[in-house]
Each structure stands twice: as structure tokens, then as C-alpha cells.
């Protein structure tokens, strides 16, 4: 049995076990934490077994599923998938460990049920990155929505129903259109080969020779699904609602990893399967990407709500990632692939810290805070680290990725790159402004100072008594520590990550450029 299969089955089994322990929250939490840490440990042998110079897809495992349609249950990994699998395996134990600090679940909801769904989500997300059968990928792409739908709709904030349904319908519609394209690719393969198959490698070989017009139609189907998932402007409107209403732990996984299925899909499916269409339609994608960078940045600066702020920041970053992918140079694409990892780490940490701030203060409105660093200096430092990584300060992990994207794209797409660079400047503005509003200056705001009136009432600091707000405990520091280590570590020594993805990226790129 391959390590990959173990990585999928362990959280699945863990989800069942935790669901069985629902009645005992403490035991359920410990079990979930144990399972997720064990799963993280399983990544180590997988990473060691992965040989960057070897086959395109490694650690393969396959069995028949629906022979009539040539559908297999088959898994395998390349460098890019490996990074994504590693990052979700890393984030799950962290969000479980931080759960008591980041979220207060709605009344009547147990942590056991919540954690069971989180583990299920982990298993499905790993499987979606590992799938090497297009049909299986579609199935997992849709199935993955169901635990997320319940995580948002059952455990989220006040407008959770709306957010959950919106999230589901957007992704479901995108998935269905992708299904049409997948069937189209299947029927091309069955015309060419005599028998249909959904095997990724075979489909890539066959479909990439299809006429350009056919490719364009099929590309658009996949593109819609991935652009909704990633999300690119104008398909993004579900994300601020979903991220704003979901519990913090869920937002971390949603923005940090699940959305990467979209950009991962571009790299794994769109480019190799439809190389000519990718070339033809690259300008369209680049326009959406650059618009996303600027639009996301401007809206992030204007947000009143911290969670929606993070969502718009991510929309801007997804624009960068898409820019790097569709610039078609090795540098830029390596930048994008590593950005997928670094964005998960940086944004994941940012969301966690924001969640801790919001849970301490009992509000997600930025204007309810002020001067918090005086009360909670360590928390302030954490927000600063996460923020600096988000704005890609040199020395943090995101810098090298963003730099590679811009450097690589400038050669082939100078205009788009110059416009996107404005996004970097805006990022510095909105991140530092957020930090300034929440952490610096005199202690103020309803969340930190006992309020005399309702929301919107101006309260003089000396009127209310200071609420008891604790700084980070040792446990909370321990939970955030791995992320801090990664932010700084990968900032100074990104080589292992770059080495892992480069061969996969080069293989993807050569598939496009041979045309």
C-alpha cells in the first residue's frame, strides 16, 4: 500500500472514530489531533520517497472502478501535488490545536462533529490533489463540497446559511460545466483510441492533439470550474461570504488549501490537456488575474470586517498565482507553484491570528479594536509576522515566490506584470494599515474597552473599564510556532521547495510550449 493511500485513509478512519466519540468533546479533540499529527508524520516518508528527477507522477496506485467507462480509482503525486498535500496535513493539526482559541461554535454544536467533518475534508482534499483519473478528480471535486457545506452552514456565523448555499452552488455549477468538458475529452479519447478512458496521462496525450476550437471549448469548461474555485474576479463573490461566515478553522482550510484546487487544476489539467487553447486564451486569463490583483487589493483596503479582509487579500494573491501560471516561463510558474504553498502558510497564519484577535475581542469589526498590542504584545507580534509575510517582505516565505512570479512574467508579459506590481505596493498599504488600526496607538474600541453604548457609539476610553484580555498562552504560541518557523525558514532557505516543484513545472511548461 502506498503512503499516499495511507494519507487518504487515515483521516477518513479518524473522521469515523471522532464521529463516534461526539459525546465526549475532550476525547474527540484529542483523537482528532492525534490522527492529524499522525497524518502529518506520514507526509515525511512520502516526501522522502518522492524523487524530483524521476517519473512525472510517482507513488501511483490504481484499481478499476467503472470498467464500462474506463474509470479507475488511481492516485499518484507530482511535486506540486506533494506540496499541497503537505500543507493541508500541516494546517489541520494546527487548526485543531488552535480551535479553542479561534472559534466559539454556535450553541448546541459539539466539537466532535466539527472535527469529524474537518478530518473528512482533509481526506477528500488530499485525495483530490492525488487523483490521476479525471473522472475521479471530478467526483472528489464535487464530494469535497459536502463536508465544507456543512462546516460553513452548521457551524458558521450569523449569515451562515446564505454563505453555505452560495458557496455550494457556485462550486457545483462550475463542477458541472467541468463535467461536460471532461465528457467531451472522454469522447475524443474514445474516438481516437477505440475505447474511452479517463486516465489523466492518456487523456493529456490524446486531447492535446485535438483541434484548437475543440480545445478552446473544453478548456473553458475546466477554466470556469477552476476560476470559481481559485477564485478569479469576477467569479469570486462567494469567497468573502463563505470566508466571512465560516469558523476560523474552516476559513484557514478553505482559503489556505481548498481554493488551491483551482490553481492546481490550471497546472495539472488545463495546461497539459489543452495546450493550444491555453496559449490562445492566456490573455483573457491574464486580464482576469491582473484585475483580481488590483480589485482584491483595493477592496481589502476598504473592508470593515477582518475575515472579509483576508478573503479579499486572497483574491489579490490568487491573481498573482494565475499571472505566474499563464506567463508560461519556468521562473514564473515555479513562483506560482511555490506561492500556492507560501500563500497557504502566510494566509493560514494571518487567518488564525485574526481569529484569535476576534475571539478575544468578541467582534470581527476592525473599528472595534485599537492599540491592542499594548495589552497583548505577543499576539501583536504574531499579527505583524503574518502580515509581513502576506505583503511579501524580503526574508519571509512569500517574497521569493512573488518575486519569481514578477521576474518570470516580465519577460513575456511586461504590461500585465507592471500593473500587477502595483498590487505589491497596495499590499504593503492594506496590511500595515490593518496592523496599525488594530494594534497601535492608545487602547480603544468597543471590543477592548467595556462599551457604554451600542455599536457606533463613541466611547471615551476612560469611561469604560478595560476588559480582561489575555495575551497568547504557551499552548497558543506552540501552535503558531511551526508557522512562524516556516515563514522565516522558507524565507531564507526556499531551496527544498523550489527543487521539489521545478521538475513538475518544467514538465507542465514543456507540454504547453511544444505546441
Amino acid at each position, binding site marked *: 500500500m502506498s503512503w499516499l493511500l495511507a494519507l487518504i485513509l487515515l483521516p477518513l478512519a479518524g473522521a469515523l472514530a471522532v464521529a463516534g466519540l461526539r459525546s465526549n468533546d475532550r476525547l474527540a479533540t484529542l483523537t482528532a489531533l492525534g490522527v492529524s499529527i499522525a497524518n502529518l508524520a506520514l507526509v515525511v516518508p512520502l516526501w522522502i520517497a518522492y524523487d524530483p528527477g524521476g517519473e512525472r507522477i510517482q507513488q501511483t496506485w490504481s484499481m478499476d472502478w467503472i470498467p464500462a467507462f474506463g474509470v479507475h480509482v488511481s492516485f499518484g503525486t507530482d511535486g506540486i501535488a506533494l506540496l499541497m498535500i503537505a500543507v493541508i496535513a500541516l494546517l489541520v493539526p494546527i487548526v485543531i490545536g488552535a480551535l479553542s482559541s479561534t472559534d466559539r461554535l454556535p450553541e448546541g454544536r459539539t466539537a466532535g462533529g466539527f472535527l469529524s467533518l474537518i478530518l473528512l475534508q482533509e481526506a477528500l482534499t488530499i485525495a483530490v490533489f492525488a487523483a490521476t483519473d479525471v473522472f475521479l478528480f*471530478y*467526483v472528489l471535486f464535487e464530494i469535497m463540497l459536502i463536508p465544507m457545506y456543512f462546516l460553513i452552514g452548521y457551524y458558521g456565523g450569523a449569515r451562515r*446559511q446564505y454563505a*453555505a448555499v452560495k458557496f455550494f452552488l457556485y462550486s457545483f455549477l462550475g463542477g*458541472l460545466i467541468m463535467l461536460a468538458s471532461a465528457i*467531451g475529452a*472522454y469522447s475524443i479519447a474514445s474516438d481516437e483510441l477505440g475505447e474511452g478512458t479517463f486516465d489523466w496521462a492518456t487523456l493529456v496525450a490524446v486531447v492535446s492533439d485535438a483541434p484548437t476550437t475543440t480545445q478552446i471549448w473544453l478548456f473553458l469548461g475546466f477554466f470556469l470550474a477552476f476560476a470559481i474555485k481559485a477564485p478569479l474576479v469576477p467569479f469570486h463573490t462567494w469567497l468573502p461570504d463563505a470566508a466571512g461566515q465560516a469558523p476560523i478553522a474552516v476559513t484557514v482550510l478553505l482559503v489556505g488549501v481548498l481554493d488551491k484546487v483551482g490553481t492546481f487544476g490550471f497546472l495539472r489539467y488545463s495546461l497539459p490537456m489543452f495546450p493550444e487553447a491555453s496559449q490562445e486564451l492566456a490573455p483573457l486569463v491574464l486580464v482576469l488575474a491582473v484585475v483580481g490583483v488590483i480589485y482584491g487589493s483595493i477592496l481589502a483596503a476598504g473592508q470593515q470586517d477582518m475575515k472579509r479582509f483576508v478573503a479579499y487579500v486572497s483574491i489579490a494573491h490568487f491573481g498573482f498565482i494565475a499571472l505566474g501560471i499563464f506567463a508560461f516561463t519556468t521562473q514564473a510558474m515555479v513562483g506560482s507553484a511555490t506561492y500556492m504553498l507560501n500563500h497557504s502558510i502566510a494566509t493560514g497564519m494571518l487567518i488564525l491570528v485574526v481569529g484569535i484577535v476576534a475571539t478575544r475581542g468578541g467582534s470581527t469589526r476592525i473599528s472595534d479594536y485599537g492599540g491592542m498590542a499594548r495589552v497583548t504584545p505577543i499576539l501583536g507580534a504574531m499579527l505583524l509576522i503574518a502580515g509581513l509575510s502576506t505583503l511579501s517582505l524580503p526574508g519571509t516565505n512569500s517574497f521569493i515566490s512573488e518575486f519569481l512570479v514578477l521576474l518570470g512574467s516580465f519577460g513575456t508579459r511586461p504590461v500585465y506584470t507592471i500593473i500587477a506590481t502595483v498590487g505589491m505596493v497596495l499590499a504593503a498599504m492594506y496590511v500595515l494599515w490593518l496592523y496599525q488600526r488594530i494594534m497601535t496607538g492608545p487602547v480603544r474600541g468597543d471590543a477592548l474597552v467595556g462599551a457604554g453604548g451600542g455599536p457606533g457609539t463613541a466611547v471615551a476610553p476612560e469611561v469604560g473599564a478595560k476588559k480582561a484580555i489575555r495575551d497568547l498562552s504557551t499552548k497558543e504560541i506552540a501552535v503558531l510556532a511551526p508557522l512562524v518557523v516556516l515563514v522565516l525558514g522558507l524565507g531564507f532557505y526556499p531551496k527544498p521547495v523550489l527543487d521539489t516543484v521545478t521538475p513538475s513545472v518544467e514538465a507542465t511548461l514543456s507540454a504547453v510550449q511544444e505546441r
Partner: protein
Amino acid sequence: MLNPFLAQQGGAIETPQIDYAAILPILIVLGAACVGVLLEAFLPKHQRWPVQVGLTLLTIVAAGVALGAYVGDAPEQGITTLSGTVAVDAPALFLWGTLLALALGAVLLIADRSVEPGGAFVAQAGISPGTVQDRAQVSSTGMQTEVFPLTLFALGGMMTFTAANDLLTMFIALEVLSLPLYLMCGLARRRRLISQEAAVKYFLLGAFASAFFLYGIAMLYGYAGSVRLADIAAATAGTDRSDTLLFAGFGLLMVGLLFKGSVGPFHTWTPDVYQGAPTPITAFMAACTKVAAFGALLRVLFVAFESTSWEWRGVLWAVAIISMAVGAILGLTQTDVKRMIAYSSIAHAGFLLVGTMAITDEGLSGTLFYLLAYGFTTLAAFGVISLVRDASGEATHLSAWAGLSKRSPLLAAVFTFLLLALAGIPLTSGFVGKFVVFSAALSDGMAPLVVIALVFSAVAAFFYLRVVVLMYFSEPAPEGPTVSVPGAFTTAAITLGVVVTLLLGVLPAFALDWAGAGGFALSS
């Protein structure tokens, strides 16, 4: 049909060859239905229920055994028997198996007396609604046990309908399946006025549809000089006969068939009848009538009108789009769960039509699979609906379903699963059904229609989700309904539906093989 007899004037009329082994399942069902009627006449009232239930279940099982025995060594090409009026071929056998299995589930629901004391059917159909006697019958434990033979008659009609190889046999089968259904719709124990309204509405509209169907047969006879499907096919292949007769006849025939399949825009009866009929009968209609109607539609299109598909396909495109649009969009506005499932069935009819129009082997096997999958899912869904009750009977208003997951987590989980199957989420039979139907249509050159169908799938998913949202994310109403503990019969029926829905979703290979076992018998 008259020609052979006219030709033999003067000579002795030969009796047609009958392959009894092939049509044994139909004979068993119709024979047992007659026995059931006699039992009604001769048994004392208190003995009727157990005997009728036993007889009906036994009949269905026996018919299934007879079918299984015949399938083992059936000729691959299929046969025609009774002078070519009945074709027993791979699709017919598949549909018979589907109908029998679905009828078994439906009969289990019909026979249940634990959810509603005495069963879902009126004690004496002759009592006027709203009278003192009517209030008394609500709490009595008797029921009109004629329901069981009526069900068998309808089932026999459906089985004949899917195997009818000429239009007159098809018409007779249509009447045999319809008349018992009209009656059974009006037999609800509670809310008898809307039940009777449903029956009258169904009867009147059904009578119109039958008239259309018959008129269509007349036109086609005028065109081809025969009512046999094979003769019509032969006549359409390059003759100088009047196309007007052909297409007028075809159109009228389609109206009749599409009406039975509740395909929009011929769907107007569906929500009212589904809502008014006793829920077990709704389940029977929704599952089995759909199978029978689309089985017959497939046969007519594949056997008789294959060569003219370019002429009629455009019209059916429009019909399919209307059906999906009506089902998906009006379904959004419904507040009654039974009406909602009715609109869902209209949308599904549109999806089915997409597969039916692909006149290829994939289209045939895909549509057959879809029918099997849809039948079981919808059967189980109505089984679940019959369990959610308040003081006045079933609580079908959607607001009553709020927060159901707190009161009855298992029921909410089962219903969610069924709704996801209806929405076509992977790992349910609904997804595999959509997949095979749409891939058949796509490879037969109907890509735009498939994209439209996918968009409407997403729209329809919204109203299924709305129920999930209500059950899980809303707070329960203070005086909400109770969830009855189902008896053995209903539990068995729901379990059957859920297990098949899951099985066909995860391991569809074997059922796909059955559905793709062979085409229609073309020889007459």
C-alpha cells in the same frame, strides 16, 4: 394489424404462436390481479388485508423469479410473440425487472399500517368528505384493500406498455395502467377533498392525453397502413407518402407519451396529483409510471422513428428544455415538499428526454440506467415524506421540516442523501445516471443541450439544498411535526431505495452492463 386477417379470408384463422415463458411475468401479475378482485368479493372484511398483502408480494416475487428464469437463456436479439404485438427483448426485460423491483418497494409502502393507523387509504371510498362518517373513518383501522389488485393491474399494464410492439397494444396497456392509477389517487384517508380533486384532474387530463394518443395512432395508420412499430419504420424509409400525416401522428403520439412521463409542457397534472394522492401511491406513480412511460417512449423512438430523428429532434430539444426549465425554476418556488418532488420529477423527465433523444446504444443504456436509479431514489424519498407527520396527517409544508435533524438525525441524514442523489452529486446513483445520459447525448452531437441541462441541474440543486438547509441549519418550530417510527414495511422500502441509490452510485458497473445488454428486437 388487420392485414394478416384480411389476407387469410376463407382459410382457417391460425392461432398466433405464444411464447409463454417470455410473457410469464406479465401473466402472473395480471392473473394475480384477477384473483385479488375475486378475493375482495369472497373474503370477509377482516381477512382481506393480510391475504391481499401476502398475495401481492408473492405475485411480485413470483413474477421476478419467472423473469429471472427467462433472462438466463433468453435469446440475445429478443423475440416477438403474440403475432408480433409484444416484444420481449433486452430493454423490455430490464424495464420489467426495474418495474417489479420498484413495485415491490411501492407495495411495501402501500401495505404499511404502522405510520398511519389502518394505512394511508380511506376506509370506505363512498363516504363524502367532511361528513360525520368521514371523521369516523379517519380513526378507523379499515381500508379499501382493492388498492392491492389495482396496483397489480397497473403494474401489469406498465409491463405490457414497455413491451408493446404495436401502437394498439400500447394504447390498451396505457389504459390498463392508467385507470387503476386514477382510482387510487382518490383514496387518501385524510385530506380527501384534494385527493379526489387530484383523481378527477388526473382522469380528465389523462383522458385527453389518451385521446391524443389514439388520434396519433389513427394518423400513423393512415400514413403507414399499419400500427406496428416496425412497419411504421419501414414506411418512413424513403416513400412518397404524406409527411403531414406522419408528423401530425408522431406529434399527437408524443403528447400522449410525454404526458404520462410528466414531461413539461405536458406536466400540469403532476404537482396537483402528486400532492393530493396518498403518498404510497405518489411513490408508485413517480417511480413506476415514469419508467413505463419512458420505456415506451424509447421503444417508439428507437424502433419506429429512428430514421426520421433529424426531423423531430428539434422539437424534442425544445420540449426537454421547457421541461428542465419548468421543473427547476418552478421547483424553487414550492413550499410543499410533495409538490417540490413533483417539480423535481418534471426536471428529471427533461434530463431523461436528453438521453432518450440520443438514438444510440449509449443513449438507450444510459436512459435505462437513469430510470432505474431515479425510481429507487424517488421511491425512498416519498417513503421518508410519509413519516413526517403532525396531528392532521403528513406535514408536507416545508416550514414543518425546519430543524428536523435535531428531532430525528437519522431521518434527516437519509433524506439529505436522497436529495443529494436527486441533485446528482457524485457517489450517488443520480450522478452516474446524469453522467451516462449526458455523455450519450454529448457523443451524439447535442453539446449545447447538455450544457443547458447541466445549468438546470445546478438550478435544481438549489431547491434540494434548501430542504437540507431547513433540516440542518434552521431551528425547529415549537409545535413542529413528529417523526413516526416506521414499521417494518416502510423501513424495508426506504432501506431498499437508499441501498440501491448508494450501490448504483459507488459500484454502477453491473447495472450498466445489464442496461447495455442489448437493443430492441426489430423483427416483427
